């Protein structure tokens, strides 16, 4: 059956769903209130990371990683993916114990992609690191990609497969229509046999309309980037007990982030950076890489992300409608998962059992949640 599919949200997950659904022959329309990749998808840190994932996400992250290896085949562009490896650094013995525990946990789940490295090995791989760090947890093959280039590659692939994109169009309401939906967007009306909610930080509104509210919060992870520095770093570096993501690009600039939060101005729909959090992040960087004290920051920014209280996404069918599928709330680490989320959405839309376990991501885990106020 050729279904009429409407996807709300032209971010990574919306575009990935569009690619996989159109590949199955469905007629797909993607609606976005701004433009593709305006918020979280286009301005995130670009981490392609399996390291440190929530256990429920590991099978998906492993499958996504396989797709990242051949992105040029999937979307016709390598998305600047650089598999330089990622290392979570221990700053003290307590951190080291946390990492050892993590390694045991991952192994007990049947995976071996994360492994402890000794002090010597750590400093061999990251010579610029402060000598006090006693070890780390490494994941080879992880790395980073260019976020905006990635979301654009997915969008263009979808367009090549006949998907139409309506940007600058805000969905204003839903109306049940037979077994499907009439999607209202101002004066526009779109008929949908299947509706996909990939609206990111704005996905909660659709859930309310569907009678299944979720405790989604819009947060603004902040990033800052330095001027070009001499090459000193290969892998992407994380910290164990405080937020940090630290990488040097090929052009020499260093991107610093990892979860410190700015402020969301919901009226203007923009994320503002906050000095305090940036300074905390700077502290972490300087304690791990003391010479960075003199490195100059040229820009800071923040993007709006949908974060769930348990830090894992809502990915699966609606609990109130047979013809709605959710894929949102990736809680500031959905970038790496984007190739696989669309496959899962397409499977669900076709009435097939997805190839990966998605029960932990069910919206029903929030069924006792009621909107306050």
């Amino acid at each position: 059956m050729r279904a009429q599919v409407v996807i709300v949200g032209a971010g990574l997950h919306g575009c990935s769903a569009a690619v996989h659904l159109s590949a199955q022959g469905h007629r797909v329309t993607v609606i976005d209130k701004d433009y593709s990749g305006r918020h979280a998808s286009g301005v995130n840190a670009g981490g392609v990371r399996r390291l440190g994932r929530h256990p429920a996400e590991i099978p998906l992250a492993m499958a996504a990683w396989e797709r990242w290896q051949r992105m040029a085949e999937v979307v016709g562009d390598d998305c600047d993916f650089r598999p330089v490896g990622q290392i979570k650094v221990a700053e003290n013995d307590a951190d080291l114990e946390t990492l050892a525990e993590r390694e045991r946990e991952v192994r007990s789940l049947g995976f071996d992609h994360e492994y402890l490295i000794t002090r010597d090995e750590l400093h061999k791989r990251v010579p610029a690191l402060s000598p006090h760090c006693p070890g780390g947890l490494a994941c080879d093959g992880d790395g980073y990609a260019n976020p905006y280039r990635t979301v654009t590659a997915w969008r263009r692939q979808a367009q090549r497969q006949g998907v139409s994109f309506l940007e600058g169009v805000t969905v204003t309401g839903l109306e049940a229509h037979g077994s499907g939906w009439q999607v209202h967007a101002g004066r526009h009306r779109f008929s949908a046999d299947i509706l996909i909610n990939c609206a990111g930080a704005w996905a909660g509104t659709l859930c309310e309309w569907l009678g299944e509210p979720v405790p989604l919060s819009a947060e603004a992870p902040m990033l800052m980037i330095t001027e070009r520095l001499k090459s000193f770093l290969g892998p992407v570096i994380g910290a164990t007990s405080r937020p940090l993501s630290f990488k040097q690009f090929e052009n020499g600039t260093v991107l610093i982030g990892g979860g410190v939060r700015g402020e969301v101005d919901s009226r203007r729909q923009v994320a503002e950076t906050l000095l305090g959090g940036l300074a905390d992040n700077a502290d972490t960087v300087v304690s791990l890489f003391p010479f960075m004290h003199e490195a100059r920051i040229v820009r800071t920014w923040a993007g709006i992300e949908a974060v769930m209280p348990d830090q894992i996404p809502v990915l699966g069918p609606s609990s109130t409608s047979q013809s709605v599928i959710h894929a949102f709330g990736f809680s500031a680490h959905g970038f790496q998962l984007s190739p696989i989320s669309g496959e899962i959405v397409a499977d669900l839309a076709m009435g097939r059992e997805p190839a990966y376990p998605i029960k932990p991501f069910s919206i029903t885990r929030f069924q006792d949640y009621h909107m306050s106020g």
Partner: protein
Amino acid sequence: MKTHDLMILGSGPAGMAAAATAVAHGITAVVVDEQPAAGGQIYRSIESTPIKERRILGDDYWHGKALVDGLNDPRIDYRPGTTLWQLTRKLEVGLLQGEQASMVRARHVILAHGAMERPFPIPGWTLPGVMTAGSGQILLKSAGLAPSAPVVLAGCGPLLLLLAVQYLRAGIPIAALLDTTPAGQYRDALSLLPGALRNPRTLLKGVGLLAELRRAGVRHVRHVTALEAEGEGRLEGIRWQCGNDSEWHHLSTPLLLLHQGVVPNTQVTRALDCTHDWDERQLAWQPRRDNWLATDVEGIAVAGDAGGIVGAKGSAMQGQLAGLGAAIALGRVSEEKIHKEVKQLRRDLARETAIRPFLDVLYRPAAHWRLPEDDTLVCRCEEVTAGEIRRMAEQGCRGPNQTKSFTRCGMGPCQGRMCGITVSELLADANGQSVAETGYYRLRPPFKPITLGQLATAAEDAAG
């Protein structure tokens, strides 16, 4: 965090006049300027310039002396050599004095940081030896530095003529003055002449400059339609076409000074997310302001060229107006009480700026000077060409934030100051949409790079 009643950013004519006005109403103003001395671009180095012979820099330059002297008032906390690196919508102000970063809070802010030169992207404009006329003038005023070999000045606008005359008077040889003003524009501007006659002094000054150049026999090439800078590793010469002639003319020169007008510096108002409008007559973005020069961000006003080009005297008048606005906002005076003064001020301002439409039309850079050919670099920091921007448009980029994410265009140390307007206009042209629809870069602090160490110091200040 320390709180100040009024912070004025910039000590050019607008900032200095605003400070003097505020002080007259009992407000202690903090005046911050990145430069080591007051005066802004127009009165730069007025207290220290080695060029003492008054006729070289001219009466309009020395006119600034009184305003600069006004900053000596002990009620003004004037801080030269201080960089603004952050300003939030809550009026938190991040400053950098020398290596020392700090954060303070303001009850009212007047932005008076002036204009910047419009980008002039021609083939070869990034070669060493190619500068803007503005930088040429800075060197002359602040250090008396002047090229010894004959220079070429090219472009359009009052500043270009003024610099040519200042060079002439200082005895600096001018190889040629290439005028890029399209032929038809003299005719277009003519209809606006009656309005311009309300400010005859400025008009006569312009006529006088042209006459002085002619008397001195400076080679003045008009209606230049194409211009390229050439050289291996640095500027060696230029070539140009003019009129309807397809012949290339060549000239060897080690120094080319380019200029095609000035535009408001909107970096800070953009970062504040003030509403901006595209002014089609001035071909520039302007922060939207009410009749007290207040933006749509509470507590932030913009005076002088930073809000739209009005020239030095117009800027000083706007500074006064914004200073009065601050006094009202801070409850130091009632609007009623200064009603008459304000009415007169607005009248003077209208007369002073009456010449603008004429100048804007006369010196409007033609489209091909603003929309360079594919091979020409647009973003100097990240080396992005006009052709790459056009290709991004084909791939669906509607605005500069998308091309920025895609190509890093505008992400370099200049934060888009050198490419922003060009990219917006290129995308508007390629996508067949207006510049207003196309928009501009979203800007974020720091406005000027600061180190991680300084960031930590500032945060302690903000928390304390």
